[in-house]
């Protein structure tokens, strides 16, 4: 094992509090990513401080909305716009919200449709 990695599972209501704790402890936002797992979407928020790698994990239903952490970590806006566009994750209050235009792909997004309703896809200009 090259490094120990801790994963903390939480509910979406606890997200901002937990992220604030990491921020106040001086952790760097390393990445955010999501994984479509059948009827749930798993989101990992990763932080690093002096090579200690920690994850916050959130599991939500595709139709659930979560709060953006970009008010705490401004740089989260790129990750959150990506999740919103490619996976259809509903995220509220992103500080720089592209509203579906961060990825200028020729085909409609999201690529991983959270619901069978194709009407969620947005046509790119």
């Amino acid at each position, binding site marked *: *094992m*090259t*490094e120990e*990695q801790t994963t903390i599972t939480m509910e979406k209501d606890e997200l901002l509090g937990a992220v604030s704790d990491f921020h106040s402890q*001086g952790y*760097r*936002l*390393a*990445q955010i*990513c999501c*994984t479509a*797992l059948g009827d749930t979407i798993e989101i*990992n928020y*990763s932080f690093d401080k002096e*090579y200690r*790698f920690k*994850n916050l994990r959130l599991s939500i239903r595709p139709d659930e909305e979560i709060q953006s952490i970009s008010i705490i*970590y*401004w*740089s989260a*806006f*790129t990750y959150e716009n990506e999740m919103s566009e490619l996976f259809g994750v509903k995220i509220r209050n992103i500080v*720089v919200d*592209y509203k579906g*235009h*961060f*990825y*200028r*792909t020729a085909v409609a997004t999201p*690529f991983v449709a959270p619901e069978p309703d194709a009407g969620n896809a947005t046509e790119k200009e």
Partner: protein
Amino acid sequence: MSQRNVIPFGPQHPVLPEPIHLDLVTEDETVIEAIPSIGFVHRGLEKLVEKKDYQDFVYVAERICGICSFMHGMTYCQAVEEIMEIAVPERALYLRTVWAELSRIHSHLMWLGLAADAFGFESLFMNCWRLREGILDIIEATTGGRVIFGSCKIGGVRRDIDDETMKGIVEKLGTIGAEIGRTTDVFLNDYSVQHRLKGIGVLSGEEAHALGTVGPVLRASGVAMDARKIDYAAYRNLKFEPVVEKAGDCHARCRVRVREIFQSVDLIGQAARKMPGGEIFVKVTGAPNGEFFSRVEQPRGEVIYYVKANGTKNLQRFRVRTPTFANLPAMVKMLEGASIADVPNIILTIDPCISCVER
């Protein structure tokens, strides 16, 4: 009050080898806001993992980028090896380290050339790329490829480097290193270069950390973070400290990369001296079941591979957070308040690799 204009920058632009678009909101000659957008060459490689055998996928991972291709393959292999608890032979770890550092040298030389081209120093650009050819020759001689090495596999590496060849590589790097030193002196000391880069695109250490910046961009702002300190591959057995500069401007980012070239030469020398004998791979059977975030210090900074597997031959999720993606927010901040004439230099000093970003 000056009139505000929006200047589209990219996706096709002379300083951009790859497509990214920026809407530059300007007042006169000053950038007020920069709004990036990507997706022009989105390839969907992350999704492809659901259809490829996890062992074959190394070939795809290597093709995410044409500059740090080996490190992409290595990071992927490392992730799967961690999940499957594979003990990779020590010699293979040293060989991975040597190829990774060769990749860093050629990437930084390529960047120095592109930077010289961006500020109009054509002869310096050509000299950097001439020197890079010497490194590519070593890579070709040891792997058979100049861009895609094809040397990494899950469980070790595909090719060995015999001791005599390794000795020759160290000697050749000594010769090329002296030549590189004469060229990089221009970047460090030339008045014209300093005039174009010093005091431009300044990012403080606090800002760099808060923006999640990685790699030379972070270290040029005084933050000593280098993912090689996580002790993957053979780095745990090599002596080095992260290269740090404090000014946080374009010239500091240039100085970090110059110093890292010589650090890489030193690391290859150390690896050659300490490399043990033995096998270069172990046979891998079965399928991974679990997850891991694999981190490697690429030339542009820390890359993170998230691999999630469910015990089948196809992975459940493969996600790449590239260093350029992590550095986009910092680039946006650096561009605010910059002169339009400095925009190309500022963008270049994060060493953007859009091919990686678009994975």
